[in-house]
């Protein structure tokens, strides 16, 4: 249910990599508000003003989102490959980004140039709802967007309209009155039966909650998942979690704190994810919330805190926990959940408290399987923590483990080396009948992993169930072909 209220905004900062060296794809370049002259110089130096990175952001998108000068944005727009109908990240056109930034002159320009005003992005937002979810308060922007024929009643996929989306951020009733005139109702509900009050609660917007109560809105109601405003406020989103004052406020208005949703969640399940203030935990315990309440997946707040690397809440819940190795319906204990999500702090703590590391989950997967699955460059440190703990406990991977396949799939040569060191069988076939060498031939970008596997005795002669050798598979690999990798070393003798 989290996702219905979670607001899909972008990871602009995170997505600056890729297309290495192209200044136009670096948010830092746009922060400096570069002049047209600087942009021209960069183009001359070979930086591509139309290139998209892996997340489908381009220079124009970054320029708009960094609020670059109109002159610079328009100049970028004129470059070949940057037409008004170009589709970028999450299926958005420039009009949607301009709407998000409330950039009136740019919106006017894009509309004049024939930008598609009917476009819906991959999260179900159009230009109007995207402006609303970004918290745009300038009515002139909405006037402009509505004048193109966009319906005021537009909703996202969860059925949230502009007022729902604005309820988290607006501080007075101006936009409520505005959208009422356009045909929206202050009492409208989304598909999950959340009203404006629920949305305001989720973001901890006390001013708006007071205003809506004064308007006579029902605010102690449950949505379709049996959640009241207290549970919604307890969930943390990308913007972080709500403070104690939000829960105290809701409590003072008679919104029940001791509540269990139809899915078995309490506010403690909610705060286990992200809250850092211990007083919030104590507040809910005082109000009678059962710390050991099990939700429909079989998880307690303690287990969710372990999963989300929330050490404070884990430690708060521990005294109430009878068995730290308790398992959910997938056979996962708190420590498995920590490994699965790369949560090093809660893992370390659970280890010192004697959590069982020799587990297997309901699918029979061991700790090695999960640490390989959760490995990424970004959390290589956590991986090392898990690996050290497992080996210090003399644990060994299952004999038919697929850690080598996982490592090959991730394309990380250091991870492949670790799997080999741990004794993974070099010619083991996975469910699809593929050996690690087959998989490497299919997914490789270069020949280094292939060579490494051969050095460790990978058999070139093994064929798939479709009679393909590793050489056959590598020959079909578009990236190896593009990089001109000589594959003759893979030929079976």
């Amino acid at each position, binding site marked *: 249910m989290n996702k219905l209220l979670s607001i899909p905004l972008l990871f602009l900062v995170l997505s600056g990599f890729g297309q290495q060296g192209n200044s136009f794809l670096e948010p830092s370049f746009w922060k400096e508000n570069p002049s047209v002259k600087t942009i021209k110089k960069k183009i001359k130096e070979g930086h591509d003003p139309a290139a998209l990175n*892996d997340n*489908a952001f381009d220079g124009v998108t970054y320029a708009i989102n960094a609020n670059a000068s109109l002159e610079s944005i328009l100049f970028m727009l004129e470059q070949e490959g940057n037409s008004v109908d170009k589709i970028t990240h999450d299926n958005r056109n420039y009009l949607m980004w301009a709407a998000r930034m409330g950039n009136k002159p740019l919106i006017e320009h894009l509309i004049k140039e024939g930008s598609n005003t009917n476009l819906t992005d*991959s999260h179900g937002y159009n230009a109007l709802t995207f402006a609303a979810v970004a918290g745009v308060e300038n009515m002139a922007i909405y006037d402009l967007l509505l004048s193109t024929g966009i319906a005021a009643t537009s909703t996202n996929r969860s059925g949230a309209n502009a007022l729902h989306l604005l309820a988290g951020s607006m501080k007075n009733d101006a936009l409520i009155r505005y959208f009422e005139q356009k045909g929206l109702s202050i009492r409208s509900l989304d598909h999950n039966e959340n009203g404006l009050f629920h949305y305001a609660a989720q973001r901890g917007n006390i001013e708006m909650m007071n205003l809506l109560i004064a308007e006579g809105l029902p605010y102690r109601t449950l949505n379709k998942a049996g959640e009241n405003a207290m549970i919604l406020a307890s969930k943390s989103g990308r913007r972080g979690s709500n403070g104690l004052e939000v829960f105290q406020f809701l409590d003072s208005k008679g919104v029940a704190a001791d509540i269990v949703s139809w899915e078995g969640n309490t506010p403690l399940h909610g705060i286990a994810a992200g809250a850092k203030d211990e007083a919030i935990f104590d507040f809910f315990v005082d109000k009678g919330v059962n710390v050991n309440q099990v939700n429909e997946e079989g998880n307690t707040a303690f287990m969710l805190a372990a999963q989300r690397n929330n050490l404070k809440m884990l430690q708060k819940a521990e005294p109430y926990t009878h068995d730290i190795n308790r398992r959910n319906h997938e056979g996962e204990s708190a420590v498995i959940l920590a490994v699965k999500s790369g949560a090093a702090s809660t893992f370390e703590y659970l280890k010192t408290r004697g959590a069982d590391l020799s587990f297997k989950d309901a699918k029979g997967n061991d700790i090695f399987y999960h640490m390989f699955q959760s490995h990424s460059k970004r959390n290589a440190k956590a991986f090392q923590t898990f690996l050290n703990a497992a080996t210090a406990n003399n644990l060994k991977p299952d004999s038919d483990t697929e850690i080598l396949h996982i490592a090959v*799939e991730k394309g990380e040569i250091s991870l492949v080396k670790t799997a080999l060191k741990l004794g993974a069988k070099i010619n083991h076939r996975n469910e699809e009948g593929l050996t690690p060498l087959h998989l490497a031939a299919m997914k490789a970008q270069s020949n280094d992993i292939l060579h490494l596997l051969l050095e460790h005795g990978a058999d070139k002669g093994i064929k798939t169930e479709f009679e393909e050798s590793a050489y056959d598979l590598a020959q079909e690999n*578009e990236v190896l072909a593009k990089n001109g990798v000589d594959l003759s070393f893979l030929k079976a003798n």
Partner: protein
Amino acid sequence: MNKIHLITWIAITFIVSAFKSDVGSSQYKCMIQLTNYSGEGAYIVVSVLNANKEYVETLRVLGDDEEWYPDLPTWWSFFEKAGQENVDAITGATIAGGERSIFILDIDDRYLDNGHFLRFETSVEHQNYVENDVLLPLKSSSISGKFEGSDYIRYVRLIPN
């Protein structure tokens, strides 16, 4: 339930299912091999279309998070309305660049040789949606073989099972 009833019931079920497979359907081993593209895992739907290219039945969905199903807009507009049977039974894990998925396709014989098509459509997060990555006529003379894809799919292999 008393014993006689149970036996009758089992017998009927047996006859019905035997009858069904007689008129029935044909099973094919299907392998989807993706190109070595970079990016997130692909969502893939395999469906039967009629002669007018309208959806008739969803045979397989690769990708188990329904949140992303609308990213396959043509299929989604059918699927949402159809309120189809539970798709869990025909859902598998997504696959990413260079990877393959192997599964059994159960194709009803009445779709064969009368203008129906088999469609493989694909979508990758942050990238484009491809309505007809593979589209092939359901003809008994040509249904087994290797079929080139146009975008994320390198090829599809179908083999009578």
